Every structure is written in C-alpha cells, then in structure tokens.
C-alpha cells in the first residue's frame, strides 16, 4: 500500500539512499534554524550506520538529520526526532497506528523509508492542533469518545482527516470502508465513524 508515495523525491534515488550519498538541496528548504531547535529535538552525535543526510519538513519545520538509510519514517520520527505520537503497532503496514501525512497524503510511516521524505512535508499528530486550539477532528474524537486506550488514536485521527479531505466521508458505509486500514483493538469503531461523520457534516475545512 501507499507505494505511489514511494516515488523518490527530487535528489534522492534508491541508489543514492542505499549508497549513502548525501543528497541535499531543495530550493524549498529555507531553514529557520532557531525555530527548528525549538520544535524538533536536535540530533544526537553521529551514530553507527548514519550515512544519509536528509531534510524533511516535519510539522512545518525543516528537520535536517543524518540517518541510517534503512531507517523507517516511523523510527525517524519516534527515535530521532522525539515525535512519539505516531505509534508502532506492527511495523508491517497492517495496523495503521503509524499513519502520518506525507505531502498531504496518508501513509503508513513504518513502510515509508525516511530517506523518501527528504524535502517533503511530513505532518504528524503533533502538527495537527494550532496552539491550544484542537483540530476539529481531535475535538470530535473527544466528543464521541472515539478512543479507549488511545494507542491507535493518532493514526486514526490522521487517517480520519485524510478520509474527509479525500472526499470519502460521504456516508457511514463509505467512512467505514476508508477507515478499515486502521485497526482499533479496543473497538471504538462506532465512535470513530460518528466523529468523522460529525466533522464532515459540519462542512468545515479540515
């Protein structure tokens, strides 16, 4: 799934990623260093196997980091950038707990090589609210108790936002179908569907 997200961004091909060639340099990336420091943990000292420098834009801030080319986007977010909202539930793209947006599209970050996100916009659950104001989908999840343990919730919410943006939140059966890549083992599906329906019906831009 999400293989089309796998197309190499400008500057990084499979060969350069695997070979560890440093491939940087997108005109899009004008880095505001101080703001990056404020929002994304700075990378620790060089580590074993870290040969590939990438510069994804994570929640609106450039996050330059040198990685082991095998690193998944999920492990980059969680273990290097301190963004632990996206969760590891299977590491196989089977559960959806790691769902984030890359250039506005939902992807399983455990199946996405971090190398592929060089120069791309990555949005995680931490980037959804604006300051203290919750995103309407976050509020709807609270209102409909669309969660229990909360572990799959960040992935559910990122998928739910995408579901609305894709135009797939038209009715309950369609919502259920387009939310079936995200397993909720606690069984909060009824609340999840109600939350998405609520947001979609209000017609708010999400």
């Amino acid at each position, binding site marked *: 799934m999400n293989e089309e997200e796998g197309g190499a961004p400008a500057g990084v091909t499979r060969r350069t990623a695997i070979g560890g060639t440093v491939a940087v340099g997108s005109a899009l990336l004008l880095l505001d260093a101080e703001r990056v420091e404020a929002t994304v943990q700075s990378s620790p000292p060089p*580590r*074993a*196997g870290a040969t590939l420098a990438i510069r994804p834009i994570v929640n609106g801030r450039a996050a330059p980091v040198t990685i*082991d080319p*095998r*690193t998944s986007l999920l*492990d980059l977010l*969680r*273990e290097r950038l*301190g963004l*632990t*909202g*996206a*969760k*590891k*539930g*299977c*590491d*196989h793209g*089977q*559960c959806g*707990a790691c769902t984030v947006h890359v250039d506005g599209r939902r992807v399983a970050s455990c199946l996405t090589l971090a190398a592929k996100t060089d120069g791309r916009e990555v949005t*995680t*659950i*931490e980037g959804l*609210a604006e300051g203290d104001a*919750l995103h309407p989908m*976050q*509020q709807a*999840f*609270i*209102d409909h*108790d669309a*969660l*229990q*343990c*909360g*572990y*799959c*919730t*960040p992935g559910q*919410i990122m998928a739910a936002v995408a579901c609305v943006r894709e135009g797939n939140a038209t009715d309950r*059966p369609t*919502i*259920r*179908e387009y*939310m*079936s890549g*995200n*397993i*909720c*083992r*606690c*069984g*909060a*599906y*009824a*609340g*999840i*569907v109600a939350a998405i329906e609520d947001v979609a019906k209000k017609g708010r831009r999400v």
Partner: protein
Amino acid sequence: MTSAPFPDRPRVDAREKVLGQAQYAADVAVPGLLYAMLVPATIAKGSVRSVPVDAAMRVAGVVRVLTASDFPPPPAGGAGGPPPPPTITDQIAYRGQPVALVVAETLEAAIEGAEAIRPTYAAMAFVATIEGDGVEPQPVEPSTGGDADAAMARAVTRHEAEYVSPAQHHNPIEMLSTTAVWEGGVLTVYEGTQGSNMAKGALMRTLRLSADQVVVKSPQIGGGFGQKGGAQRQTAIVARAAMLLGRPVKLVVPRGQIFHNATFRPKNRHRIEIGADAEGRMIAVRYDADQQQSRQGQFPPAYHESPPMMYGIADYHGTAANLRIDTQAPGYMRAPTPHPSSFAFDSAVDEMAVKLGIDPLAFRLKHRATRDPIDDKPFSTHFLHECLTEGARRFGWDKRPLAAGATVRPDGTQVGWGVGCGAYPANVHPTIATLRIGADGTTRFAAAGHEMGQGIRSTIEQVLVRELAIDPAGLEIAIGDTSVAPQHVTAGSWGTASAVIAAERAAASAKAAMADLLAGRTPPAGNLHRQLATVRRPSIQVEVTTTGPGQGAKEVERLRQGGMAVSGPVYPQFTSFSYIAHFVEVHVEPRTRRIRVPRVVSVADCGRVISPRTAASQVRGGVVWAISACLREATEVDPRYGGWLNNDLADYVVAVNADIGEIDVAFVDQPDNMFNALGAKGLGEVAMTGCAAAVANAVYHATGKRLREMPFRIENLL
C-alpha cells in the same frame, strides 16, 4: 454514602490522547538509549547447543549479545506465587522462545545483529496440538450443585452437543516493550503492563534485587486485554542487559515474536447436555470442558464460573481438564473462560428453546436465578431479566418470526435475529490510597490501578469531582507505578470497583480533615483549594485503606507485598456477578455466504455505572471483540514445526471498521450495595460474554444452520 447516578463527562485523558501526548512505555525519552532485539528459537522443543555471536558482533553498532550464560539461574520456587517467567535458558520449551538478545547503538543495527545469529540446537520430539498423540490430560476439581444425574433422569427433553473455541491472541495494538534504566543501584522499568507489581516481583526474584531497588512504571497501556497482566518474558532479559551495560536499553518486541512469547486464549471444547422438564424448564446440566495447556502452564480451565449463575438451574455438574502439550503458556484473554463458555452454554440454551418450539427470549425469561447453586448463596443483585426485557424493547424483538430462515430479502440475503447472555464475576482487591489537596489548585490521588483504555482514571475522577469541591483541571491520578502506591494487577473487571471505593473513602476522609482544620468555623468561600489558601494551609493529605467484603489484614498485607489479593465472586454472605444480554441482527449474503452484523443492542447490569461515557465504550468494545472472536479470529498451530503460522495482523484477522455496524448500549444502572457503597460491579469482561452466542443464534435464525465451532466462516454456510 451516596449512590445516585453519575453524570456524562468526557474521558479524563481524551485530550492528551487526541493530541498524541499520552505517554506509553516505549514513548518515554531516555538519554543514551541502546536498542535491543531478541533472537527466537527455531525449534519447538529441545536444547540450544551453541549461539555463535561473532557475526552479530561484527555488525557496526552492535554492543553486546546476551545468551543464557549471562543470566543468573532461575530463582527457587515457593512463596510469592507462581515462578517468574524464565529469562534466556538453553532448554527450549516452545518455538519462538528467546535464545539471545542483541544490544546495539541503533535499532537497525540490533535487527541486523539478531538476524546474523544462527544458533544450533538439539531438537526433540514435541506435541503441537491437542488432537495429537502425547497429550497429557489433567482433570481439575469438578463444579457441582445438587444432583445433575438424578435431575437429568427426570428430564423429558434433552439437548446434547459439543462446542469449540479456537486458540486466539490478544493483539493489543501497543506491542510488548520494555525500557530499562539502571542508575545508582536502582532499576527503573517502563513497560506497558497491567501488573506493575507483578513485573517488579519478577525482576526482584529473577535478578536478586530488593524491593527498594526496583521501580516499574506503566503510565498508559495501549490495550491490555489480559496479555499484559502477568510478568512478561522479555522484562528481566532487557533489565539484565541494562545492568550489565550500565546504559538504558529498550526492546519493542516484534509482533511475530509476541504471538510466540505472550500468553494466548487456549483452544477449548465444551460437551454440554441440558435437560428440561415437562413445563419446558431447564432442570439439569452436565457439562465437560477441556482446554489446550502448556506443560507447566497455570491458567485454570474455569469454564464453570458463569454458566451456573445464569438461569437458576439447581442441578449442575461440570468437569474440566487441561490438555498439556508443547506450547508457551496460555493465559487470561478478555472474558477468559466466560466468553467461550457463554458461547457454548447460551448456544445450547438456544438449541433447547428451538427444540421446545419456544421463542428464545421467552424461554430465557422463564428462568430466573436467585441463588448460586454451586456455593449455595444468594446473589447480591441479578438483573439479567431486566437486561433482557430492556434489550428486547430497544431491539424490537416482538417482530421476530419464530421460524428459522423466515426472513429473506429480495436479493436473497437471509436475515436472522439472535439473543445471547453472559455473566462475569464481581471481584475486588484492597486498595491503599493517598489523596492530597493543595492550596495551589492541585489534587493528587495515588492508588493501585492501571489505565488501559477501560477508563479507570475517568471513574476515579467522577467520584472525586462529585464528592469534593476541587478543580478537575488540577487533578492528577497517579496509578500504574510501584513508586506511588502498592500496585495490584488490573484485570478481571475488578479495577473500577476496587479504585472507586478507595476514592470515595479518601474523599470522605479529606472532608473530615478539612472539618477538623476549620474546627467549627464556617468554611470560607470557594472550593477546597481556595479554602486551604484562606486558612493558610498549603495542603491536606489523607491515606485510606479499603477492602472488599470479607477481606481483612491478610489481603492488605498481600497487596503490600505485591501479590494477588483478589476476592470474589463468592463472598461470606452472597455471590456477585455482572450480567449482560445482547440482541444481534445478522445478514448472510446469498452468494458469498458472508456473515455481516449490521445491528447489536446490548444491555448490561454492572451495578451502578460510574462513568457513563467510558462504560458505553467498554460495552461497544466487548461487542466488537465478540464479533471479531466468532467471525474472524483463530491462531493456527503449525503441526510440522510447532509455533503459530498466522503470526501477524494480516493473517490473524481481527474486526476492522467495516466489519462493525450500529451498537446500541444501555445499562440497568441499579447499584449493588451489598457489594460496595457505590454499588459498582465490573463491566469490561462481561461486555463480551454471551455476544458470540447471540451471533451464532442469529445465524441459525437466518439460515437454519447451527454453527458450534468458532470462528464462523463462509465455508461453514455453503
């Protein structure tokens, strides 16, 4: 003491959860962290001959490989409950057992290192399935009330059949993980566990540490369902690595390895005979159950916990047995024995109703239980009839045709309506709680309990906010941490009843302390925080100890020692169970024969509902679990090599959003004041019971075909 209904309030930790800020064990940031990966055994039984580590050590970033020789010998058995799980040993009891732990600077290096290790083994013959040769049957004590043989001889109508429930795995979405920090002679472990006390006890015994050298923190659990109730296999292994290396170590166990090392619901079988008299009343039950079991496993085949508590059948004889084979130990998985036994028993009850030509709802309502026939005690409360009556009303049961196969839509879809009931013991453990209210607007309640989404924090908040004029925004509920209060395993639906009575008692004690402080003066204006500020006291703090019916100093001491201190469902004066009735509509598609469940109505008797919103979600979750259990889930043993074949979430199929329709939930909401002052019984487990039977009964009503083995698949309806 008050036991009025509670208001609808949002889940207390919903905001942090939707923000992605809730911290689960593997989210905790620890500087200087090393990453670990286990190497699983590729034989089903035997011993390890060698574990060559050179290839792994050559991987850049690998720091160390731990094998059996790096661990102290297993602790002696005896006092303190069951032995802790082994660490890494050379004796292999099941496929997938850990034989080495690779520790590296990065996760990628740890994985590469683990894959580079090729142990050699001396394999032995093994028994993989309960149908195979070499199974060791081991009967346990029967459960008997009255004289089932004599009553069966009087019966004029009999039904006899066998029902089967498959092996299943919990699969919470949070994978098992351990992060261990060894610093200044103190081991701190972050782990998603329902039993931080159990993890602590296992670490103390395995690694020879004293109580003040071990802290276990389980801040939020990403789903437990019983999988995280006992000490976990990887915990002491990871802790040992952290102690040997002097650096923190984290292991997130891959899901395929979890299938092999965590507990699971064992395959179980139920031969049931029910006899009814000339008035069409059930008067006798003979019921033999058995289950898959490991060679050393201790999960009891308690399949007679709930069936005798349902319908007032005085003459009951139940046997149960373990079937010991070579597997990892099975264990408690949501509604551990009452889910499969209620599937079997309430299917059998439905078959009896069909045999007698009576509507299955009317048949159940002919049977009202008032006494526990096994232990000969009255029930504290028993509102199953109220669940049935209200559920039938909400569902529109009166429009149901009696005959099976009577409702077929124009496209050929067969429609069926079924009812099923369940029960689950009301248990309780002692709690030692501290409550501190500050003039600065903060309140801190610390007690035993683990939050895994069931909403235990929300129930505690409900009670404290109702009883005390405090600011909910400044309320911290400190649970799941061995350093804040004596912890107890949170499972078996005993969490809420145990926690909320402590919260209420603490609130009463705090009110009394405040009254002492005011010494007869009129309380100043404002909430308790303002009042404290006005009288220039920074805070008040109280400690309370609460116990369940019949409990005393012995149980409190067991709690302090970190052991099991649960009582129930049989108490000195009464027996206490929660009940539920489910009404299910199924659609069977004409060509694919796929079973869909568009509509469920569930009404529960859990005593007083403490947190209406999270309680309703609990019941919906139980219904989803039951639908998933009876239509999807089965873990398949590999008879050739041992272990589990479908050990990931693509092949072990659980219910997804598109599998679930509308679920209407209601509660009887009558307090059980014999059980405790607030009248709360338990809910999370009972929610699942009886629902699989309701689906099976609905499938029968739709098609005329009786399915007696879960999961029900399209091939069963062709």
